[in-house]
């Protein structure tokens, strides 16, 4: 009787059945999963006509640069884009999934998607995975209710802000925003400030680097400026170039002829079943 009761969670709310087991595991030496701020600088700000998102383009695997020019600004809807920091697979998967859900919702309702819809879908997904989906996002867009900018943390909490930064380079970028941001920036001033914040992350944070991507979203229009700035050209290219000769040596040549002719005998032994 008591076994049957344990399996069903209490009406609504959390089931704390596993807490004792988790405690036992921690005592045995299992390290609880921690929140890792991995190499990236992503930013967003609200200006007079909409929102501007920015991101660097470096993807790292520990101390090695895996991709020098990856895309961190993901499409969610024609009027909503999302920058992603954290585990690349997680940010890709979660933004693709919510983007599909938004499209279906647009067919269902016949209306343009709203930023708060994307926000709710993302935060409830991340919360249900209790922080194991390591995606830290900056979500921005313009809909019928106006321009919106939100940050979403891996555990599922959100903030609504006029300017935001995430990733390992967030402090370097936030330093620029806190000094120079003001309300009612024009498009050019906004793009310049976003590029400056990303550059600060690129040059001062080792986890961020390479180029600057910018996305400007206004009412009815969005401009995705891929590689808006390329402040890191390769510094040295050898003029004569390098040759990589084939390093193979013939050690031994031996020809073993295969059997010349194989005879097929008609009416041989029947095959066993």
């Amino acid at each position: 009787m008591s076994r049957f009761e344990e399996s069903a969670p209490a009406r609504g709310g959390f089931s704390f059945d596993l807490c004792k087991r988790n405690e036992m595991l921690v005592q045995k030496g299992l390290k609880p999963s921690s929140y890792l701020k991995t190499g990236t600088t992503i930013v967003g700000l609200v200006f007079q006509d909409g929102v501007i998102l920015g991101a660097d383009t470096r993807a790292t695997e520990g101390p090695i640069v895996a991709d020098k020019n990856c895309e961190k600004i993901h499409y969610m809807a024609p009027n909503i884009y999302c920058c992603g920091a954290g585990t690349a697979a997680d940010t890709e998967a979660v933004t693709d999934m919510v983007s599909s859900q938004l499209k279906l919702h647009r067919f269902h309702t016949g209306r343009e998607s709203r930023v708060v819809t994307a926000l709710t879908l993302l935060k409830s997904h991340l919360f249900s995975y209790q922080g194991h989906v390591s995606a830290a996002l900056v979500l921005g867009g313009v809909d019928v209710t106006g321009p919106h900018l939100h940050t979403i943390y891996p555990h599922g909490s959100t903030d609504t802000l006029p300017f935001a930064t995430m990733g390992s380079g967030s402090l370097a970028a936030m330093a620029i925003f806190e000094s120079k941001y003001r309300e009612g920036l024009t498009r050019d001033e906004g793009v310049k400030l976003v590029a400056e914040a990303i550059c600060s992350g690129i040059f001062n944070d080792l986890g961020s680097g390479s180029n600057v991507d910018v996305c400007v979203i206004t009412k009815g229009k969005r401009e995705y400026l891929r590689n808006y700035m390329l402040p890191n050209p390769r510094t040295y290219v050898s003029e004569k170039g390098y040759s990589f000769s084939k390093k193979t040596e013939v050690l031994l040549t031996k020809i073993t002829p295969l059997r010349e002719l194989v005879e097929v005998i008609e009416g041989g032994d029947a095959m066993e079943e």
Partner: protein
Amino acid sequence: MPKQQANWSPYDNNGGTCVAIAGADYCVIAADTRMSTGYSILTRDYSKIIQLADKSVMASSGFQADVRALQKVLAARHLIYQHQHNKQMSCPAMAQLLSNTLYFKRFFPYYAFNVLGGLDSEGKGCVFTYDAVGSYERVGYSAQGSGATLITPFLDNQLKSPSPLLLPAKDAVTPLSEIEAIDLVKTCFASATERDIYTGDKVEMLVLNANGIRREVMELRKD
């Protein structure tokens, strides 16, 4: 209360890469000038190279506090040698001294990854490569530090003989000219900077030959 583990480490890694190549009558020693900790840059303009004797130059990556302490010990020992023997230490002698100094702290090592370069008594280039506790070997070229795993395969391809099994092992020094070796070093650092986050800013190159020492600096990516 379960047993508490020490969560303070006496070491830190300040990153960086060092390379040295020996030629028939010259030696090139190079190191980048970036000093970092974690994901931050401490300074873009820190020299990891020191000239220990008139024909011995050492470059070290790793924990720069230990590197600085090691440099001081070696400089002091060299001064004593000069007083006692009335001459400069040769590069092979300095190599042995460095090995002994490192092994002396076998049970609390210097977190330093060194390459020693210079000219031997015959005027030929020599490069000695070390691990953190003093194991060393004379080689024709070497790379140490965070970018070493990126640079060494490229140097193996350009400088090593095609098949060490068939041909007898060639002379340790490379047949390349001084200009070609410097070009190779610049390419190594430009490439390592692309893929290693701890390497960048500038590369400092010292060239030792019969005429003395020459220093050259090249800009690298700063991101």
